[in-house]
């Protein structure tokens, strides 16, 4: 942190938090409404809409699909992004900077543009509304994050640190276990968590390529909200927020989030 933490700065931070967390103040009470329509404050209280949510078959199916897609995307994204980041940081080869720019370019494109482009390609490839198609589309979005985070992780691990361990008598496997792995772990966990959350959350691109046979949770919620205005949306939101917080909490407790995201 540069400079002092002044009172105006604290107030600014407080305002930002209020702005970000404000919706929670509405959504949380709403989710425990027993009314048939969205009214605030609720007239009657209960867990009616939580029960309805778990009983909603299409929603639960979409939830399972999203879970499957997000997990697959996380694994594949790491499998592709890790070696790419390693190569970019540890080797010098012609076109290295170009490769880095290319790999991280999707970070700069608006999702709507990406979604449209993916739609055009996937129509031809018959990938619309398929599991493969959704995973591929999400990978385009998540892999750049993995590469970004892991290149940073590798650059904070200069080769000389591993070499120092070698010279002190550590076998290659011991070097990996005692030095490389612990030092890369924060970046690794951050990439995994971010990939998972982005994929699980992704709605814009998914809207282009989901179909009646295969739809993701955010798209299903989106559809639901379009036709209905009952407090179930609030219940879903609370569940998603709680799940996200749980993931962040676990990372924070095991590794320290500030360390994970970078200095």
């Amino acid at each position: 942190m540069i400079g002092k933490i002044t009172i105006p700065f604290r107030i600014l931070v407080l305002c930002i938090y209020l702005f970000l967390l404000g919706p929670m103040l509405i959504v949380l009470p709403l989710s425990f409404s027993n009314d048939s329509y969205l009214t605030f404050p609720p007239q009657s209280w209960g867990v009616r809409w939580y029960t309805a949510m778990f009983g909603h078959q299409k929603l639960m199916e979409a939830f399972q699909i999203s879970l499957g897609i997000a997990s697959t995307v996380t694994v594949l994204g790491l499998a592709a992004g890790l070696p790419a980041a390693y190569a970019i940081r540890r080797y010098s080869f012609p076109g290295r900077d170009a490769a880095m720019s290319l790999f991280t370019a999707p970070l700069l494109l608006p999702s709507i543009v990406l979604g449209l482009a993916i739609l055009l390609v996937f129509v031809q490839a018959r990938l619309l509304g398929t599991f493969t198609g959704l995973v591929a589309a999400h990978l385009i979005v998540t892999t750049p994050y993995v590469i970004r985070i892991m290149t940073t992780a590798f650059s904070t691990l200069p080769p000389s640190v591993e070499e120092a361990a070698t010279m002190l008598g550590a076998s290659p496997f011991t070097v990996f276990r005692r030095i490389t792995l612990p030092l890369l772990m924060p970046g690794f966990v951050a990439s995994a968590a971010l990939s998972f959350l982005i994929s699980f959350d992704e709605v814009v691109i998914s809207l282009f390529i989901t179909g009646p046979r295969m739809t993701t949770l955010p798209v299903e919620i989106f559809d639901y909200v379009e036709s209905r205005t009952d407090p179930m949306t609030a219940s879903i939101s609370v569940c998603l927020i709680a799940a996200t917080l749980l993931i962040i909490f676990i990372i924070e407790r095991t590794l320290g989030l500030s360390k994970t995201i970078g200095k």
Partner: protein
Amino acid sequence: MQMVERRGASANGDARPGDSEPAFLKLEGITKQYGTYTAVDNLHLDLPRGKLLGLLGPSGCGKTTTLRMIAGLLSVSGGQIKVGGDDIAQKPPHKRDIGLVFQNYALFPHMTVAENVAFGLEMRGVAKSEIATRVEEALEMVRLPGYGTRKPKEMSGGQQQRVSLARALVIRPRILLLDEPLSNLDAKLRDEMRVEIREIQQRLSITTVFVTHDQVEALTMCDCVGVMSGGKLAQLGSPEDIYERPANLFVADFVGRANALEGKIEDVDTVRFGDGVYKCDTHGARNGKATIVIRPHRVHVTPNRDRTLVSVMTNSVHGRVLRVTYIGDVVQYDIDTGTHVLKAEVHTASGGHAFAAGEKVLCEWKPQDMLVFAGGGQ
């Protein structure tokens, strides 16, 4: 620059350091090739036990490459590396029992200072209780007692480098290698660390190779100095040998400041350059082109007077001061002799006459201060 051999001095030096002592570290023709590029070319070198060798040379001459081959972090393209008689060139680095100190310290950021120092002992299966005492001893040796619980990033550069030294030494390696360990430190700290490293090295009497491109470091700290150029060893000798009796023009020019003058050998004791004839020792050469080297601080600058009044220094030339550069403890004069520009350095503390630009002066020097390298320069 072309290497010009000086008569009577071989590239490996007349006075090989420790001629009598057996070599503990022996490099026998080690070579490193990157594709068609030869980074280290058939290097031979002997280092007796407990001695400190400085590897000195310009950037890119292959110092780091040589060191990394000894460490085993780079494979050799050819040749043998012997430590105490065994060839270790094919041994993996983690079995070589060699300590290495890096320029960027390379401490393990996720471990405390004590854990860093303990790492090598753990790898050797030393008992926990013994590790604790040896770590504390090592930290005391580098004057960081009680710093064990800190993380590396909570320490200054100089402290980190000392931890790195303690970590390398605590395993009592057979050989210690240091790759420009002081180049990230400021000038004052570097001076202190130089003395400290030398003291520890002598106290433990550990065979050490110290890579540097700083000639002061090489000359002041080391028992012997190897000057490298283009992947080859240009000279190996004591600091005094290297400075006073450079084996070739490259060493003369690289180590210390030098006036390198193109001239001609007239006889075994006479050379000519410009309009003058000068007395010196040509090491038996009777004729031919030569490059003559005179150290600037061996040139005495005196007020202008008749040259025929004969100088006590035997050799002298008239000139006019072109430029005066004040460097603190010395003043450097560029003196135009009509045919050459001669650099001279005079100590400011000597109370001598200070000359101004444009002033006429007489430069004098002794025959033994002229180094004659037979053959052309360029």
